[in-house]
């Protein structure tokens, strides 16, 4: 399905004609005809939101070309198009083309394939050529295509508020270079965000050579890579670690969210899943120890999770190091650590027993000393070169914001060029960056949005989105990847390298040429061929950072320990504040992205807002503990709910005299006295989407305490605000939804999932023999299968039967699938108000449950286990929704899909009521026609979607009108597309009977995005397909199977691998609750020492029930 095709240059003929005309009027180009054309355009086209109509039409030239107006508007200027073969290779009108590009983010990048329809990118996929990611992509990458079409982007270059044309801008940029060249750049300063682009690095080097006195500073509010300084101290070299999680059998994370927040998280997730995945009882499974202050995605996957303040992580690291290395200094350093020594001993023993196959990782936000300790442990365990490699990185040599600030204060900076970032919003509060900028006579700002920083700058240069830019970047392992434009800049934005090249007075300012020159120099050989291959593959082979051997020396690190101070002890009066980048809006740069805003936070499930996260203990002490109702039948909620909306108290956090106000959210699993403040919200100068979302935690973040800070206080006000939380209830209520077991019990009892479900007590779902039949055979057997039902089963006569398997053991809950589905299936966003009314439209959602291990205790658990479960339409073979639809709008096809006929749906919503999985979504309003905030105005409100946003829609998926039901289709458009393609192929090969798609020919959007390959989709009739193999595993079970819905999506049970020697060893807490709930005692309750965990007799012998054929 993937074809990577290089844009050919247009031929002379394409550029100029042939000219078609619709009437003689058009040929004559009479005013009357022009007027007629105007009138034909959609209502309101002349007052587009944010986009000049005329300009928009220019940009939409491609569609004009198809519309038959002629190719005169076709914009394929020669200079932008790459050389080509002979013809437009593979271009079939109506079919998408895929081009390789990459999304740069800080010091790494995610290689991507962009799906383009008629010249507009609509969907991004991971580039499968880049092996470490294996075609996966992240939440942010999935959502970034929406930013391209954001009508709130900076649409023009401006100078003092007035428009600046391209020529004027070019003159201005050139004049900077000219003005400062004489003084060697004195008075000129740059403040850029981090980048891995080799081209930018080269330009910066040349810039520095030309302006030796200029200041080049870089600032990123969020660190996602271990500090080079730590490696310098430990190894004496500028290296960075690259973890090989697949090889690690024991992993200890010291406040390290390597599955989501670290720069290599996509690669790490994938590798971690390799060590986590269990197919048979003979497989091995890694064990993850996580110590953390907040609750992260990584913490949710932990087998042993230790809640510990971030400041105390250094003590924990030292305590572990003292047990693992022979260095006695560490033990002394670890004094004051409030952790059960048994925990530490057992953890250390486990690591020591796995020398060379263990791994200790420290969070990027942790100070160098923690990283040094982690390196020390890894070195002592012989992990270096095994589970962790060190690669050489070039130090950027850039100054920091702290270096730049005094220069500005001293008046040494006359011209400041701010490239990207948004320092006025996210610089440390103590620098008072906004005030600082007033000391600079000329501020030139290059950015994609007119944001807080732009408002303080005289000149704003509109930046191009990466999908509009030529560029390059390096992935986490250093592989060079191209950033290739999919479309001309919609708003005439410039690329960063062009701006730099113009300031530097480079002879070449064309970004394409700049990238070409840089890459071909690195690649060597035939420049053109190498570059073409780069663009085709989406990466430069063998360009990864060099792995270099390192030697840990404790001697070098002595000074670090000498200068380290003892962390404080925390209490209600002296709290720790931890600043963390938000999972969705990152450091604030994605705050105007509706898909991300509406995507529930993987842990809190909040949308459209951030919240001050506090532990249940602190909540109790603050008196904000939700009371619950008089007779509590389900577990108490995490917050008071007002008509189903989280009604959060507003609290004020004071850190070092600075205050910030925000809503409180009680987060189980937090370190008792750590408050987590998610960054990135509360922007003041932002587009329509991000406006008014969340609070700005940067207000209390200072340069000396940018990651976590002690001594904070919190006061709770009586004010309240509504938070849009997509999951009101956190407990599984002792139900058999996520079926969990410990790995050691699983090895004895691999079919455990079948013994703990409600269906274990019902007659076999598929009858006595049905389990071994194909769906078609079962359908033919009909009523005999079970219960002599009168109803006719759909026949399932198709040559292939679709099914899906979701591995709960590897799913981290990262949400990439949720947004991938949104992008693929044109799922609208509905806004905070509608989300809080329970009307979010996601076709796949991730349920997150906490378990405390006690079904009777109504309290909010302080130390829960989290279990996540992606739920989309299960495509039930006996679908309850189909039975109740009065108009036959939802029916089955012969390949097992439960299909929705939107045109037939009248919207009784009966199907949604009768869906036990609650995956059907109703169009309560015209989400696509009306705009957020105006839904209730109906036809009197403004027509919604800006034309620009329509461009991101996938043309292969219908936009749903109000009043119809929608749901997951297993990406039926992809299935049908693949079928057509296969048909064409086999017809050419002369075997038209071959109508079965090869395994893997169709990948659903969620499956394709999933970094941990938890989702497997395919033909369940083929016993060799990946999905059949997954479903054949013993831990395969169907959610709510006892209802006899026979879902085609089944789950693989979740496994935890706790260490029996640990004091907190326990059977999975959700399992415990389930057994308490159902009256059977939990095995191995309490400490694992006194009772053999998972006695095979404790649960009924596994009977294979249901599952796939």
């Amino acid at each position, binding site marked *: 399905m993937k074809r990577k095709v290089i844009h050919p240059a247009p031929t002379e003929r394409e550029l100029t004609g042939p000219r078609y005309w619709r009437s003689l009027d058009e040929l004559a180009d009479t005013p009357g005809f022009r007027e007629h054309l105007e009138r034909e355009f959609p209502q309101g086209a002349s007052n587009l939101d944010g986009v000049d109509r005329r300009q928009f039409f220019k940009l939409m030239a491609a569609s004009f070309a198809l519309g038959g107006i002629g190719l005169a508007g076709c914009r394929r200027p020669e200079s932008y198009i790459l050389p080509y073969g002979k013809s437009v290779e593979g271009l079939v009108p109506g079919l998408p083309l895929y081009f390789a590009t990459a999304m740069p983010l800080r010091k790494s990048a995610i290689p991507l394939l962009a799906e383009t329809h008629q010249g507009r990118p609509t969907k991004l996929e991971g580039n499968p050529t880049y092996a470490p990611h294996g075609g996966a992509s992240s939440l942010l990458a999935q959502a970034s295509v929406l930013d391209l079409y954001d009508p709130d982007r900076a649409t023009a270059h401006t100078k003092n508020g007035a428009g600046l044309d391209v020529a004027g801008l070019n003159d201005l940029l050139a004049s900077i270079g000219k003005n400062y060249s004489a003084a060697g750049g004195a008075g000129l300063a740059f403040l850029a965000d981090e980048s891995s682009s080799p081209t930018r690095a080269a330009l910066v080097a040349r810039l520095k050579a030309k302006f030796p006195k200029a200041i080049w500073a870089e600032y990123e509010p969020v660190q996602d890579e271990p500090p080079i300084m730590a490696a310098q101290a430990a190894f004496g070299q500028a290296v960075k670690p690259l973890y090989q999680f697949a090889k690690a059998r024991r992993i200890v994370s010291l406040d390290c969210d390597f599955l989501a927040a670290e720069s290599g998280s996509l690669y790490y997730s994938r590798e971690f899943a390799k060590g986590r995945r269990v197919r048979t009882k003979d497989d091995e499974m890694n064990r993850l120890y996580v110590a953390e202050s907040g609750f992260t995605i990584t913490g949710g996957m932990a087998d042993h999770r230790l809640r510990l303040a971030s400041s105390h992580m250094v003590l924990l690291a030292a305590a572990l190091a003292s047990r693992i290395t022979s260095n006695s200094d560490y033990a002394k350093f670890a004094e004051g650590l409030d952790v059960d020594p048994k925990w530490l001993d057992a953890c250390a023993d486990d690591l020591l027993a796995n020398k060379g196959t263990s791994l200790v990782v420290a969070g990027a936000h942790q100070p160098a000393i923690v990283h040094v300790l982690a390196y020390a442990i890894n070195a002592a365990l012989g992990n270096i070169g095994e589970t962790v490699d060190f690669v050489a990185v070039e130090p950027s040599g850039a100054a920091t914001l702290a270096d730049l600030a005094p220069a500005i204060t001293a008046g040494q900076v006359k011209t400041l060029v701010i490239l990207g970032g948004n320092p006025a919003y996210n610089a440390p509060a103590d620098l008072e960056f906004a005030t600082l900028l007033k000391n600079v006579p000329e501020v030139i700002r290059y950015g994609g949005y007119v944001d807080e920083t732009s408002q303080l700058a005289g000149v704003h240069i509109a930046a191009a989105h990466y999908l509009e830019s030529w560029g390059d970047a390096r992935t986490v392992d250093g592989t060079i990847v191209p950033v290739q434009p999919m479309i001309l800049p919609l708003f005439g934005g410039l690329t960063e390298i062009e701006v730099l090249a113009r300031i530097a007075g480079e002879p070449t300012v064309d970004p394409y040429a700049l990238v070409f020159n840089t890459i071909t120099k690195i690649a060597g050989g035939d420049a053109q061929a190498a570059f073409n291959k780069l663009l085709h593959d989406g990466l430069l082979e063998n360009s990864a950072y060099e792995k270099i051997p390192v030697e840990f020396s404790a001697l070098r690190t002595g000074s670090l320990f000498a200068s380290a101070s003892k962390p404080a002890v925390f209490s209600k009066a002296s709290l720790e504040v931890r600043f963390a980048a938000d999972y969705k809006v990152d450091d604030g740069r994605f705050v105007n992205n509706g898909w991300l805003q509406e995507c529930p936070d993987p842990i809190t499930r909040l949308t459209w807002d951030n919240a001050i996260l506090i532990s249940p203990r602190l909540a109790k002490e603050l008196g904000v503990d939700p009371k619950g109702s008089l007779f509590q039948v389900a577990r108490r909620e995490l917050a008071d709910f007002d008509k189903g909306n989280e009604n959060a108290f507003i609290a004020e956090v004071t850190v070092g005299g600075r205050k910030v106000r925000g809503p409180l959210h009680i987060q189980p699993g937090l370190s008792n006295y750590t408050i987590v403040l998610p960054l990135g919200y509360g922007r003041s100068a932002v587009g329509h989407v991000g406006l008014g979302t969340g609070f700005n935690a940067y207000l209390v973040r200072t340069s000396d305490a940018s990651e976590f800070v002690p001594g904070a206080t919190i006061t709770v006000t009586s004010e309240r605000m509504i938070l849009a939380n997509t999951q009101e209830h956190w407990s599984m209520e002792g139900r058999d939804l996520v079926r969990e077991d410990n790995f050691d019990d699983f090895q004895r009892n691999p079919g455990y999932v079948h013994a703990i479900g*409600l269906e274990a007590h019902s007659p076999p779902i598929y009858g006595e023999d049905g389990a071994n039949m194909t769906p078609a055979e079962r359908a033919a057997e009909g009523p005999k299968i079970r219960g002599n039902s009168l109803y006719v089963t759909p026949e399932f006569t198709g040559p292939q039967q679709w099914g899906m398997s979701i591995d709960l053991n590897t799913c981290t809950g990262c949400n990439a699938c949720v947004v991938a589905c949104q992008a693929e299936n044109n799922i609208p966003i509905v806004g905070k108000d509608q989300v809080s009314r329970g009307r979010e439209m996601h076709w796949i959602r991730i*349920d997150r449950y906490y378990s405390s291990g006690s079904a009777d205790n109504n309290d909010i658990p302080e130390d829960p286990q989290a279990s996540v479960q992606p739920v989309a339409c299960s495509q039930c073979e006996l679908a309850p929704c189909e039975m109740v639809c*009065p*108009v*036959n709008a939802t029916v089955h096809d012969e390949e097992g899909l439960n299909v929705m*006929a939107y045109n037939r749906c*009248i919207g009784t919503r009966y199907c949604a009521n009768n869906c036990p999985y*609650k995956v059907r979504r109703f169009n*309560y309003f015209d989400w696509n026609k009306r705009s957020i905030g105006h839904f209730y*105005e109906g036809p009197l409100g403004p027509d919604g979607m800006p034309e620009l946003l329509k461009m991101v829609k996938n043309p292969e998926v219908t936009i749903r009108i109000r009043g119809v039901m929608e749901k997951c289709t297993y990406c039926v458009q992809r299935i049908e597309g693949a079928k057509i393609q296969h048909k064409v192929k086999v017809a050419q090969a002369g075997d038209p009977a071959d109508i079965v798609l090869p395994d893997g020919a169709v990948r659903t959007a969620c499956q394709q995005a999933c970094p941990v390959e938890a989702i497997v989709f395919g033909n369940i009739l083929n016993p060799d397909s990946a999905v059949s193999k997954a479903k054949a595993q013993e831990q395969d079970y169907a959610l709510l199977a006892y209802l006899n819905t026979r879902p085609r999506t089944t789950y693989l049970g979740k496994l935890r691998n706790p260490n029996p020697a640990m004091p907190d060893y326990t059977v999975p807490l959700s399992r415990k609750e389930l057994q308490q709930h159902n009256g059977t005692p939990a095995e191995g309750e309490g400490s694992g020492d006194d009772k053999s965990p998972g006695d095979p007799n404790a649960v009924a012998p596994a009977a294979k029930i249901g599952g796939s054929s």
Partner: protein
Amino acid sequence: MSHIEDATAEAPAILAEVAPAHLPRPVLVANNRSFGWITEKICNIAEEKTPVWWWWCFGVACFVASFTVFGLIYLVSTGVGVWGHRNPVNWAWDIVNFVFWIGIGHAGTLISAILCLLRQKWRTSINRSAEAMTIFAVVCAAIFPVFHVGRIWYAWFLFPLPNSNLVWQNFRSPLEWDVFAVSTYGTVSVLFWYVGMVPDLATLRDRAVIKWKQIFYGVLAMGWRNSSRHWSNYEMAYLILAGISTPLVLSVHTIVSFDFAVSLIPGWHTTIFPPYFVAGAIFSGFGMVLTLILPLRAVYRLEDLVTQYHIDCMCKITLATGTMVGYAYAMEFFIAWYGANPNEGFAFINRAFGPYAWAYWIMITCNVITPQLFWFKKVRQNIPLVWILSIFVNVGMWFERFVIIATSLARDFLPSSWGYYSPSFVEIFTFFGTFGVFSVLFLLFIRFLPIMPMAEIKAVTPQADPHSGHDHH
């Protein structure tokens, strides 16, 4: 019509020996009113000058009805989102109101048809207005399922009309059954009502002095000339319609209950629903009859026609059906426990003690406790109290539907999807407005049509009895 007293003529001799105490039958028309008085009394209601209070009531009712009209205009123009529905509570007040009104509509046909077949003569005083109430309640009920759909302009998809798409209706869906059940019920109820009214319309025609009334009633009376042949055909038609209507009384609410019972949602998926819904419907129907007839009785001084005996009978039926409903509530709990399905068990515990417990206990109070007061004669004789209690019954039955629909949906299988539904103002006003719609129709009814079947009432008076005034013993 045969008379029970006739039977005494051929009574076995033993009766004379044992000499059973003579139990006087309560009179159905008090004060020994004459035929003429009855005709005058009932016709006069339609013939008199429109009373001022009527205009006031009509004005208020129109105003209230406009809430429904505007609510529906807003709904259709903007989307179902103007109501408070959400995932997972995709049905709420719309279907609650539908079932509520349909339930109310049950008493009329029950009184007309079943009591007719059972020869319960006391039905004559109340059957006309109860039938009218049925029809108007069905009108109100029909508003909700029609307008609650997302795309009302395609609501005709529900009907099996030939079309080029070759898409047929799904006859497995209880909603499709509803379409037929409710429309049949509505049609038969109208016919029954109208057929029963024909002799009285003829009376009004004959008495009319104004031209348009003569035409109006003349057309409606369809040439009724009071001949024996007419009467003979009329009685037969009425009996057949009663026979047709009787199963409908049971079927409509059974099928409405299938909307829930046939689904798999815990709290809905319950086999007790059909009888329980029918009992509840009769309960609410009688509650509504009482609510309407008592003021009517007071305003038009109809105490002689709607006697204490009538009220007693209605109170007793309310008591009986209310107790049945209470039994059903208890049985639901028992089965949920006995069935040992944890999801089922939770659904019921959650009803009583979960976030919607307030609604549940309102329901229990109004539906189970209130009717128990009718055990006491003093209560039954206290007309204002009966009227208040009848309102309690109406409220309780509305809450019963709310409890069944909303609480079951709000917390079903997956706790991750649990939610709490609360109505929007639009919903509240739309529902409120249907009382206006109902009142408008009912006011028009009492203004223009004979609110009581004169012919039938006369038939149950002592004067109609050929042995009237004679001593049989």
